[in-house]
């Protein structure tokens, strides 16, 4: 009766109220930023005295913002590709390998998720300073790849565990080489897992702030780093417009994944 709405009595209205308030709480900053980004007030007055697109123009006319966006895109794409290149074979080893310490290895691959990112950040900071790599593309990619790799391993391991290896063996018995069997039977079968691995790796890199702060130089910055340094100075409405673009991107990605999930749902 506590798990049935109709028989729960007046208590359910309390639940409804908390539910609605929490939904509003979760939506509040997202909707607020979006509204603010079109407001004309430099001082973030709300409701805005007028409406404008000038904060969006400010991003597109400022080469520093555009450079940081471009850097973020390049870093995230490289991380996404490398995360699959390293994560896919690692997942095969984890799922199919019969060697001692397999669970330890699994835990090791996931460990970057557990270590607080600030610790990874300063450790890498000392490391890249020593080799003069600070502010380089390589430093960003290496740092972001560390935190992207667990997502890749988890997604691919999950889908590989759901794939029956005997299908692949059947292909080999029928005359396919091992490579053919993997590329034409196994990989297509786990493509949804690889796709989610790529998506989460991209997003992990795209959204990463803390590692970026320590890898960046005034010349090379990712978008979150540029937002961070700007935020520490003042709360300009330009950040609202950048944030709104990012929210729009999130919604697009959510729609694509929902669509794919429905299409591939078994």
């Amino acid at each position: 009766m506590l798990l049935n709405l109709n028989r729960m009595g007046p208590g359910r209205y309390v639940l409804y109220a908390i539910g609605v308030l929490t939904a509003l709480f979760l939506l509040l900053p997202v909707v607020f930023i979006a509204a603010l980004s079109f407001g004309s007030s430099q001082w973030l007055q709300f409701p805005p005295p007028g409406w404008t697109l000038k904060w969006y123009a400010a991003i597109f006319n400022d080469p520093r913002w555009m450079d940081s966006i471009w850097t973020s895109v390049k870093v995230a794409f490289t991380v996404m590709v490398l995360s699959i290149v390293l994560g896919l074979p690692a997942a095969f080893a984890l799922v199919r390998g019969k060697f001692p310490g397999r669970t330890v290895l699994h835990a090791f691959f996931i460990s970057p998720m557990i270590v607080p990112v600030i610790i990874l950040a300063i450790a890498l900071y000392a490391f890249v300073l020593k080799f003069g790599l600070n502010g380089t593309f390589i430093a960003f990619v290496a740092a972001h790849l560390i935190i992207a790799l667990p997502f890749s391993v988890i997604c691919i391991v999950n889908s590989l565990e759901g794939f029956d290896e005997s299908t692949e063996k059947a292909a080999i018995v029928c005359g396919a080489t091992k490579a053919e069997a993997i590329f034409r039977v196994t990989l297509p079968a786990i493509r949804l897992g690889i796709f989610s691995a790529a998506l989460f790796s991209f997003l992990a890199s795209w959204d990463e702030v803390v590692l970026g702060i320590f890898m960046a130089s005034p010349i090379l910055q990712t978008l979150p780093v540029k937002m961070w340094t700007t935020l520490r100075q003042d709360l300009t409405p330009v950040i609202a417009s950048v944030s709104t673009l990012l929210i729009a991107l999130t919604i697009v990605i959510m729609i694509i994944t929902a669509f794919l999930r429905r299409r591939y749902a078994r």
Partner: protein
Amino acid sequence: MFEAISNNPYRSLRAPRVDLRRLRPALPALIFLFVFMVVPLSSLLLLSVTKPEIGLGNYISLLGDATYGRVLLNTFTIAAIVTLVTLIIAYPVAWLLAILPSRVSQIFFAIILLSMWTNLLARTYGWMVLLQRTGVINRMLMEIGLIHQPLPLINNLVGVTIGMTYIMLPYVILPLHATISGIDPAIMQAAAITGAKPRQIFWHVMLPLSLPGIGAGCMMVFVMALGYYVTPALLGGTANMMLAEMIAQQVQSLLNWGLGSAAAFILLAVTLIFYAIYVRAIGLGRVR
């Protein structure tokens, strides 16, 4: 990358034995993590006991000094408050989501995902603007006459709690929802038939049965909150600095690598201890 197992196509058909060669595909990832994670972390550990001089001086001053002790205390207090507030909000929401018709709960899940996937800085910026002295929340409260002076909602404990609770909510709602949905309604019916009042059923049946979800969610939030940097740095004040912020400050502005790295390893040790408790209680298989 699969040449090790492709030499003989029939090899893999035999009964699998302990075979180290199957580890080979994992090597690139292993080497990468070794070079870019294990080596840097080890050299950081070395820094913590060698700078400025060899010994445990950094750890002793961190654990002995009142200023640093305060930071440690703040870190635990804030993490505990955030965990508690998050749980209190998340439980009824997860409960509601478990009993709502799926058409309605689907909308709620979309809202949760939207908030969870929105860029962290964008969300934090939103709260900075909302909570500031001249922000909408203060202005609204003043207009309806609840307050006459703007409340200090930012650069203090209130700001950190609101900002971090906002970020952590999905991490408790989702596992709790899974646990509560998994409770067999027949158990509660049985309690009702044998004469238990709804209040008793909640405290003696439903709440104990949802403990695994509560534990998983709370532990996750607590551990995440301990090491959080961005939100406390932007919404908190200097009076309630947390450990992660202190580490960054020691390394970045004060170039005090020894103390900064020692603080990092205290944070890491605490994180790992709580994580070990979490794994012991829930089992590694169910982590993520």
